[in-house]
Every structure is written in structure tokens, then in C-alpha cells.
């Protein structure tokens, strides 16, 4: 019980300052007013256009649906405004601003939300997301938090789902370059998965499976990883656990390695899904190891991870009484695209060993390294792991094979205890036997992977990446050029004035208004405002359209900034 209380008392670092808090609420309000204004305008526009098209029944239906959605949104916004005002009024009580409101949408802050809201005197229902607020009579408080977090984290995604860009049918729809999804090889995958060997049914596939994954699939995964991770010895299928996606693998690892309120170290910026997973089910905290973009003696490359930084973050966390159980590494890194050298990897692992930390290594982009001069080193390729019983590797087919809808994730660990504990969750994260068969066939087809799929995939990645980087260069936008992953980490700081996260959010909104979804640095816990991640693993036509919208927003923004500067100059 004691550590649970400790957890309640832990405000996150960025929330401690009262001044900062007020400032945040202020921006919340500003943001909402803005959004409210836009929504009302849109609503009015719909009303007027509706008159013009009344004869078209279909149009009518669409419009009334849109209108009711807008009305609902208006309701939400009003409600949030009231909440924020109330929370502002209660400022003296030392309360923190609401978690998932519009301002922090797509924002993830580690494990704090769910726990803090369970504090007895915390007015959750007032401060939580309005959608969730209405349901408090039916849901548990963690249920409310889960709903609210989901709602806030996937709002853009929901908008996108309703209004997707299509080159013929919906040219005005949203283009989503915020999601890291590999859409370059859907033709190849569709063709391969349609072949007759995929459609196979046998009794065993329809029966209760081995909850760790069917033996035939675990054997194939072991062979596959042995080959592509260049493992010195054959990997053991008994060390493989197969679940429905890497999020599930991480979620179960967090459950079995940490008790609630305990923590993992993670270098930031990082893929926000980890923060999401850490707090949804497992209530684990993430201690951020902040990396800097600026190059100094101690930081020879932008955002370089060093053992010093790891050590410092760990010791600071320990000073506050936090129990740190592990370190999360993503290699190739998301969103930076960094590929760790063998030596760096060794150092990080040695560091973890020194402090008895588990290391969870997410290698989900391991086959998505497209620069031939860069060599990816899987942690499994190391001759001798510093602490094999505390090293746990995650891989899946979502990115490397572009089949995120397949729901397949793998854990490889030498630690049988951990593997068994994770297997207890097999029931809750099982994959269909039929899908397991298809995956096995896919991973088995080395000929196709090596001769058809990977060469095509990588050359398409190269082309798309080349196109995107050229555009960015032409715009004079600094970015990291790392040769791996499906995305580019770029710096749009020069379009922010002042350089704050509020401005970053405003810029993000401008992209949204222009039907372009990017993901902003805040979502990755980047400590410097102005960074954005843009996905390039999509069709050339779509990229072209997206870059057009991107350019439009930035040039408008530039105009605004110039105007602002002129006004300032005049005033002086």
C-alpha cells in the first residue's frame, strides 16, 4: 500500500510550478475559444450550404449528420470551458489541470493520469473529459480515465477515420502523415496473402491453442529472428511468446516486471504508444531521459543517448524514491530514426546490468533500414548479452511488413520466468489460429522476402524519403536524416513565435485545418517545442498532395510572422 500512496503524491515534474499551471489553463482557454469559434463558423457554413442543396437527399443526410456532430462538439467545448474555469477557480487548492482536454490531445504523460484521479478528493468527474464525465455513474474511475485518455489520444485519428483522403473519391479529405503506417507495399502484401497456401484450415487451428502461440509459429519466428537478427546461435522457440501486437507484449511486460507506480526509464522523444500502454492497464510510470537537439561536447550528435544521461535520470528518480525496474529502448528509434551502433548498445546494456534494470528493446523497425550505409544491430546479434535474463526483445510485423491490421507481436526473452508470466495473458491477447498459419507462411517464405519484398520495400522507402527530404531542404527546414523508419523528425521551430508548446499546438491545428495530420513533438515528450514527425511511407501522389498542403500552411504562417514582426517594429 505504501508505494501506492507514494505514487499519488508524485506530481510530474512539468506540473509542479503553479505559475506554469496557470499559464497552461490560460492557453487551454485560448485554445478552446479558438476551436469554439471555428466550430461555430463551420456550423453556420453548413447551415447555409444546406439551403442550397436541399433537393439532394443524400447530401441532406450527410449534412444533418455533420451538423449534429458539430453540435455535439459545441456541447463538449462549452462543457470543457466551464470545467476549466472551475478548475481555474480552484487553483489555490493546488489541483492540477485536467488531463485529457482538448489542449493535451494526442498528448501522453506517462502513468500519472489514472492514478492521480483516484486521489479521494480529486474532482475527477469535473475535470475529466466531458464524454467520460457523463458516464461516471456507470464506469469505474479508471474506466473513465481509460475512456478519456483514449478519446484525447486518438481524436485526430477519429477525425481522419471519418474523412479520409482518397485520390478520386475524397480529394478534400484528411491526409494522415501523423500515423506511422507503412503503406508502400500493400500491393505486394495483398498479392502474397491472397496466394492459395494462405487459405488453410485444420482442426488444430480452430481449437484452443498453446497460449504462447502455436508451436509451428514460434518455431518459425525463432528461425526468422535468428536469420534477420544475425544471431550467433539458433534462437529457441521456447523463448518466444506470440501475442496480438507489440502493444500487448509491452503491456504484459509492464505488468509482470513492475508493480503499480514503479517505473521504466525511457529516452525522450519516444513513441507515445508506450506512455499510453504504460498507464492504461499496468499503471507503470515512465521516467524520461531527455535528449537535446543542440550539439555540444557532451552531446556530439543531436538527441544522442549517452550513459551519463541515463545514469543521471536514474539517480534523480531514485532520489525521489521512485523504484525504477527497467529501461526501454527503441531501435531503430521512433521518432528520431536513430540506429544504435553496436558499441552504444553494449554500453546501454552494461549500464542496465550495473543497476539491475530490465531492458525492453523494441526492434519493430528492424527491417525498415533503407540506407545501405547503415547497419542495424539487433540486440540478439550480440555475442554475449551482458544480462540475458533481463533483456527482452519485442518485434512485430506491423511496420516491417506494413500489416498493422494483422495484430501480431513477438516477445523473445531468455528468462523463462518472464516468458511464463507473460504467457498467462495469452488468453487475453491471443491470435486466431487462422492468422497464425498465415503469419507462419509469410515468415517462412524467405525467397519472397529476400528477393521480392525487402528489395522493393527498401527502394520505395528510399524514393519516398528522397522526395520528402528534398522538399524539406527546399523549404529550409532542418531535419534528422537517419536512413531508417517510416518518418522524418523535423524542426519547425522557426515557425513558432514564441517558441512554446502552445504555439506548437497552434501550428499543429493549422495543419489540421488544412486537412493534414502530422504528429507534434509534445506527443513524443520532446522537451523542445517545435519538432514534428512526418511519415513518408505512402504513395507518391499522396505525398505530393500532402507536401502541397504542408507548404501552404508554412507560407501562410511565414506571412503571419512577418506581419507580426512589422507590427512590433511599428509599435516600437
Amino acid at each position, binding site marked *: 500500500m505504501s508505494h501506492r500512496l507514494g505514487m499519488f503524491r508524485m506530481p510530474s515534474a512539468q506540473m509542479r510550478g503553479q505559475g506554469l499551471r496557470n499559464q497552461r489553463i490560460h492557453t487551454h482557454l485560448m485554445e478552446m475559444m479558438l476551436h469554439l469559434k471555428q466550430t461555430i463558423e463551420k456550423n453556420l457554413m453548413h447551415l447555409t450550404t444546406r439551403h442550397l442543396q436541399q433537393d439532394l437527399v443524400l447530401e441532406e443526410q450527410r449534412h444533418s449528420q455533420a451538423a449534429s456532430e458539430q453540435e455535439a462538439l459545441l456541447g463538449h467545448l462549452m462543457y470543457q470551458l466551464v470545467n476549466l474555469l472551475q478548475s481555474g477557480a480552484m487553483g489555490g487548492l493546488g489541483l492540477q489541470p485536467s488531463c485529457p482536454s482538448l489542449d493535451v490531445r494526442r498528448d501522453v504523460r506517462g502513468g500519472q493520469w489514472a492514478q492521480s484521479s483516484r486521489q479521494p478528493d480529486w474532482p475527477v468527474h469535473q475535470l475529466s473529459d466531458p464524454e467520460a464525465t457523463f458516464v461516471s455513474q*456507470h*464506469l469505474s474511475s479508471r474506466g473513465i480515465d481509460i475512456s478519456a*485518455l483514449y478519446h484525447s489520444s486518438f481524436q485526430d485519428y477519429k477525425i481522419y477515420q471519418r474523412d479520409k483522403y482518397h485520390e478520386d473519391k475524397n480529394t478534400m479529405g484528411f491526409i494522415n502523415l501523423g500515423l506511422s503506417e507503412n503503406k508502400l507495399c500493400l500491393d505486394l502484401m*495483398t498479392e502474397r496473402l491472397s496466394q492459395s497456401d*494462405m487459405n488453410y484450415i485444420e*482442426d488444430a487451428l480452430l481449437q484452443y491453442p498453446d497460449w504462447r502461440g502455436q508451436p509451428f509459429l514460434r518455431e518459425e519466428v525463432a528461425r526468422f529472428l535468428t536469420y534477420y537478427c544475425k544471431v550467433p546461435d539458433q534462437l529457441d522457440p521456447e523463448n518466444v511468446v506470440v501475442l*496480438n501486437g507489440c502493444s500487448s507484449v509491452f503491456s504484459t511486460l509492464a505488468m509482470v516486471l513492475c508493480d503499480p507506480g514503479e517505473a521504466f526509464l525511457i529516452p525522450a522523444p519516444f513513441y507515445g504508444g508506450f506512455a499510453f500502454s504504460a498507464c492504461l492497464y499496468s499503471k507503470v510510470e515512465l521516467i524520461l531521459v531527455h535528449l537535446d537537439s543542440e550539439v555540444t561536447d557532451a552531446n556530439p550528435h543531436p538527441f544522442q543517448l549517452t550513459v551519463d544521461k541515463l545514469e543521471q535520470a536514474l539517480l534523480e528518480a531514485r532520489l525521489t524514491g521512485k523504484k525504477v525496474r527497467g529501461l526501454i529502448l527503441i531501435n531503430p528509434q521512433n521518432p528520431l530514426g536513430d540506429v544504435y551502433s553496436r558499441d552504444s548498445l553494449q554500453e546501454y546494456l552494461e549500464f542496465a546490468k550495473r543497476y539491475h534494470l530490465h531492458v525492453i528493446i523494441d526492434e519493430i523497425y528492424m527491417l525498415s533500414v533503407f540506407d545501405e550505409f547503415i547497419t542495424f544491430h539487433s540486440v540478439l546479434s550480440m555475442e554475449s548479452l551482458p544480462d540475458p535474463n533481463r533483456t527482452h526483445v519485442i518485434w512485430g510485423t506491423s511496420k516491417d511488413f506494413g500489416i498493422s491490421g494483422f495484430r501480431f507481436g513477438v516477445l523473445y526473452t531468455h528468462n523463462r520466468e518472464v516468458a511464463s508470466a507473460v504467457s498467462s495473458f495469452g488468453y*487475453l491477447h*491471443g491470435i486466431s489460429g*487462422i492468422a497464425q498459419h498465415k503469419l507462419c507462411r509469410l515468415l517462412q517464405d524467405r525467397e519472397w522476402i529476400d528477393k521480392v519484398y525487402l528489395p522493393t520495400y527498401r527502394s520505395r522507402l528510399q524514393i519516398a524519403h528522397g522526395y520528402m527530404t528534398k522538399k524539406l531542404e527546399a523549404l529550409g527546414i532542418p531535419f534528422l536524416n537517419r536512413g531508417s523508419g517510416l518518418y522524418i523528425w523535423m524542426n519547425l521551430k522557426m515557425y513558432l513565435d514564441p517558441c512554446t508548446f502552445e504555439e506548437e499546438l497552434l501550428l499543429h491545428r493549422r495543419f489540421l485545418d488544412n486537412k493534414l495530420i502530422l504528429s507534434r513533438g509534445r506527443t513524443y515528450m520532446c522537451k523542445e517545442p517545435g519538432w514534428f514527425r512526418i511519415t513518408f511511407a505512402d504513395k507518391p501522389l499522396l505525398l505530393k498532395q500532402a507536401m502541397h498542403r504542408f507548404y501552404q500552411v508554412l507560407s501562410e504562417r511565414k506571412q503571419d510572422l512577418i506581419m507580426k514582426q512589422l507590427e512590433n517594429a511599428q509599435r516600437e
Partner: protein
Amino acid sequence: MFTLPQKESKAPTTCPGPASTQDLDSNHGDGLERECSRKPDWKLPEFCGGGDPTATASSDSSHLSSRGSIIKWFWDSAEEGYRTYHMDEYDEDKNPSGIINMGTSENKLCFDLLSRRLSQSDMLWVEPSLLQYPDWRGHLFLREEVARFLSFYCKSPAPLKPENVVVLNGCASLFSALATVLCEVGEAFLIPAPYYGAITQHVYLYGGVRLVCVYLDSEVTGLDTRPFQLTVEKLEMALQRANFEGVKVKGLILINPQNPLGDIYSPGELRDYLEFAKRHKLHVMVDEVYMLSVFEKSAGYHSVLSLEGLPDPQRTHVMWATSKDFGMSGLRFGTLYTENRDVATAVASLCRYHGLSGLVQYQMAQLLRDRDWINQVYLPENHARLKAAHTYVAGELRALGIPFLSSGAGFFIWVDLRKYLPEATFKEEMLLWRRFLDNKVLLSCGKAFQCKEPGWFRLVFSDKAHRLCLGMQRVRQVLEGKSQVPDDPASCQSQESGNQRTGGETPPGVL
């Protein structure tokens, strides 16, 4: 003669719901220990040796968290029976003296029909949207199909709505998600016992939610009209007791048709239970996973979705899956139907962890859409085969003079072997279970279902004739104290043909 196994034995179950987790009130090993010492009579019998999570939790494990150790215990204890079985699985040709599984509730009678249907060309369809990130509630085309399917087979008064449907990878996940979004850690659901024991694990692993048993009796007394009858009085009493003990109960789990009893609730009974829940503001989770496996027409099954005017629609959540009714437990497809949008949204928020492959979603939609095949081929054939298998096993039991319960639904018979226990203890029950296993037949014992009376066993009959026959032969051997007699497959074959002669309508190759 059998002696007590020297080595520790573990929970005898193929459904990993260890008996002890009633006692788990929190994620913490120390809390558990306290709970156990406070209520000594709740403590696990020592013969369930490995079944004590505290032992594992407090053991020197440098790699797992304390909750991780408890979680691991679920795996280890569940595996024991299963592992023994898997190491020595019966196979007609390769391992005729292997273990016959009459413990796992799986329908193995219709693989021929299912394989044929699932191999048809319409099933092999791949399109990009199926390969990409889905709507986490399930693809719309599938939710629409599920709504139509349930409207039809549950006989709902009005068409069900796709937006009230959430699709995930099995009912286990659904229990887990519902427990998490409806309860805080340490809160509880009421559940009439005996019940399908795996639910204990499902609600506990992530949710930290416990189950409070509403114990039912085999003896018919008072107002009861049948053994193990669930009544509102019993529900009230269990709820009061829980309140008295300071356990916060948030909901009630009903399984209809019931597992392991095979009971079917009448519309009147259902309504009574729902009214009870409404009075106490309890959520009701109705698990209807056997709804199409009612093979006696006279049984008269009613889905909760068929009721006109649910007492508390916002707190009524229905679960269904293809695992049982379509004999595809390996397919991992389950669905929630709830009018409560907030519950649906909250569950969907967790679906990121419980999603199923887009290609499989497509196949399920195709399957559920094929009403001709379901109504004219699959269901009649499945029911006939279930009935034949049931008739055979029931006949065998009658011949042995063994009392049993069965209402013409589900895959199992709830068998009363109390007279075979020298003493009415769970220790003796376990010994008998082990004698069955030693004689190469796996059953599930009552303890695994939280039955409060020792001596009940669940016997699964939904298997092919030759396996059933051999299984029953081995059961008989144990009960007649002749279990070390080597198996004689030849005699089984003659029995089988004998049965075919008597069971007129039995389709060839089934019984």
C-alpha cells in the same frame, strides 16, 4: 490401489481458474497473505500444493514484480493438467494409449463442416484496409453483421445496432476489459457457483477484480424446483454477506446456458435476476456463449436480448463468441453488445490490446452472413451430433447408476461422483481426478468451478465417437476400481457399433 502422489499436485483443470483466487483482494502478495490467514477456511487445501500463489509470490524471484509472480502462478498451475495431457495426447494411430480429453469444453464434432466452409473461396479475400490499423471497436462491416446476426438468433424485439457492438479477440478479453472499466482494483462481481473457473483469471489478471460466489446446492429444498437452482434470495444473501465483509460488489455475472450445469434460465427467472441487479444498481454481464448449442428443442432458450423492456438496459451487457457455438475456440472472436455507449467506448479504448486480425474479421463477417449454411447445414447437423453424443454418454452414466444434471444445452454433463469419495472432501475429489488422469482420461473436477460440494465432475461429450467411447470406458474402469486393466480398443469398437445400432438417427462417423 492408488496412493497419494508424493509430489505436489496442482489445480486439476483445463480451465485455468485456480480455486484460490477468491482470496486475491489486491495485486499484492502481502495483502493476499493477510487475507488467507484471516480466513483460514478459505485457504487452499494443502493438496492443491502448487496452487498457493503466496508461496510463489513470496519466493525469491529477482526478475518479476510481486503481481508478476502471482500472474505467473496462474500459468504454472493451469498448465499442470494441460501439460500432462499435451505430453501424452491421445491419437488414434500414433498414441492410442494417450490421454483422452473430456475436460476442455470444446466442440470437436463439426470440424469437417467448418473446414469446408472456411476453405471456400469467399473466405480468401485480402484488401488493403484489412491490413491496416482498424477501427478498434471492430471493422464496421463486421459490427453490422454481428448486429444482424444477434438480432435474428437472439430474437430481439427491435433490430440491434452496430454502434452498440464491440468486437474483440474472445470473451476472455471481454471479461478482462469489462472488469477494468466497471470496477476499481479489489472490487467484485457476484457469480453463481459452480461456474466456468477461467473467469477468475480473466477478471483478475489486469483488472484486479475478484469474484464473490453465490453458492448453489445440489439438494432441492424450500422453494427450489431443481438442483443448483439460482434464486433471488441466494443472490440477496451473497450480496449482503459481501457488503458485510466490506467487499464492494459492482456487478453480477450470469452464464446462460450455464457452464458447467447446462442450466437454461427461463424468461421469468432472467427477469427476476435482472430486477435484483437493478435494485442494487449492479451491472449484469450475461455470457451467452452457448446460446446456439441448445440441442434439445424442448429446452426453450431465451436470450436476454429477446426480453421486451430490459429492467436496466444501461447496466446490461451481453457477451457472445464463436468459440462454442461454432466450435472455433482457436479463432479468438468475441463480441459485446451493450446499449451503454460509455461502457462500449471504454471497452473499445482497451481494444488496442485485444484486437483481432482484419482478415479474420472479414472471414467472420462472411460466416455470420451465410444464414443458409448456418440454418440448413451447420446448426441442424451440429445439434444432431451433439444430441447423439449426449445420448450416448448419458446412457453410459445411467448404466453405471451415476446421477447427473443436463438440460440439453452445452457440451458437458455435470456428474455426481460423490458416492465414489470415501470422505466428502476436496482432497478425495482431487485423488479421484488424479485416478482418472492416471487412467488416461482428463476430466474437470468441481473444485475448479468453485462448487462447494466435493465430488462433482464436468464431463465433456462433444467429441468424436471413438474417443468418447474410449473415454467412457476409462471412466468406468476407474469407478469400478479396475483402472489398471490395459485399454482394449477392440472392445470399444464393438461398443461403438452397438451404440450405432441403438441410436437410430446417429449420423455415420459420429457415433
